[in-house]
């Protein structure tokens, strides 16, 4: 009787573990892609300059692959819609990619949460490089006070301004 009970418990434990591991695997495979993070999507250019021909537009949250990066631009390709071209690098974001231990821990808890109906951990995002001219979400904007100090150090003298005005035959 006791042996039957132990065997039954063992089978249940194996079944539970198998189901749990499968759930974790699905979750771990979701966190690898890049996507268009700009609020209003991003224009795709033929070459890495804003003056170049536009070959299309991708909406926010469209998944993309980054092929290369040059001077603040990223060459991307998108499967849906099928498109390849250049986008301002700041418009592309990478989904949070935890280390393998973090991934395992995250998957563990997300799998656990799935099982018991709790909320999954919020997906985090990381911004790559300088952000492009997208609007909104000012709260997430990085600050660069040193740049402002540099601006304030660039005072031009009144003599220089007067000479500038005089040379241009402008109004004093």
């Amino acid at each position, binding site marked *: 009787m006791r042996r039957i009970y132990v065997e039954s418990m063992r089978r249940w434990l194996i079944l539970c573990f198998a189901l749990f591991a499968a759930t974790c695997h699905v979750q771990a495979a979701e966190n690898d892609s890049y996507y268009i993070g700009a609020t*209003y999507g991003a224009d795709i250019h033929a070459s890495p300059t804003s003056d170049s021909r*536009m070959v299309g537009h991708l909406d926010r949250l469209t998944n993309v692959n980054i092929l290369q990066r040059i001077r603040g631009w990223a060459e991307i390709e998108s499967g849906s819609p099928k498109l390849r071209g250049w986008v301002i690098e700041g418009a592309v974001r990478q989904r949070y990619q935890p280390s393998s231990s973090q991934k395992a821990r995250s998957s563990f808890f997300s799998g656990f949460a799935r099982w018991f109906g709790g909320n999954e951990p919020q997906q985090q995002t990381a911004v790559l490089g*300088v952000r*492009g*001219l997208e609007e*909104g979400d000012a709260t997430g904007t990085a600050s660069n006070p040193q740049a*402002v100090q540099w601006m304030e150090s660039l005072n*031009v003298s009144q003599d220089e301004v007067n000479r500038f005005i005089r040379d241009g035959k*402008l109004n004093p």
Partner: protein
Amino acid sequence: MKRNLLPLLLATALLATTPAIAFDFNSLGDALGLDKETTKRLEEAAKVVSALVPISEEEEKILGRDVAARVAGRFGIDPDQNRTYYLNLLGTALAQHSDRPNLGYHFAILNTDDVNAYSCPGGYIFVTRGAMNMAQDEAELAAILSHEIAHVTEKHILKALQKSKLMQVGSEVAAEAFKNQGSQLFKQMSDFATDALFKGLSKEDEFDADRVSVVYLNRTGYDYLAMNDVLKLLDARRKRGMTKVLAKTHPNPTVRLQQLTAAERTLPLDAPTGIRLKQRFVSYTQSNKNPS
């Protein structure tokens, strides 16, 4: 009407001295025996009172510095010293002919090829590298800068902030927030101003800045029609689909041009001077050496 005037004034005065964050005007109206229309007028009057919460020039600078740091953090600064020096000479010359000549302005180039410009409270003004490259002569770059200076002199962002619910905390609490830049309220005010920059000001504010900018151009001695030419350049780019970002922060250039042309007939402007200074513009922006 007279019966309603006294409670209206009393309540408005009360509100003006109360750090009211959420005020139930309907309850107040009921308590004072006011009808709905008078209660609504009371609420509107209270909004006017809250809009009068003053922001000093020093406070404006504190806010502007914080917003400017976020603009710089977002795009990066173009380190080209020659171009930046030129931008500061030109910007300062224009600012001295503006309605706030003694504010102390600072100018820098943003490290992006998109065409846009940003002005923060307190006189921190940014032009993108793309906008500098789009300009064909000094007068056109002056037009872009004048438009941004006009946003500062007309205090468009500050007025929007003053009308916001954030300032309903009252002048004393607001003043404390400016002193403590780590405070939640200051952060909210900075968020508000930064959002206004990135999402765009109202169409009326943009038209207003266009109108004021031609006056500043004219006072400084530049051909004020350069502003019209800048709008034509933007319109041409818009038709080629190259200004989608600018289009989200500014009204359609065609409409701006129509509004500006109509306004130019009524503004006190001297005849166009024809001063465009293309050669100097090219010397400063396309050479690595200071032409002076």
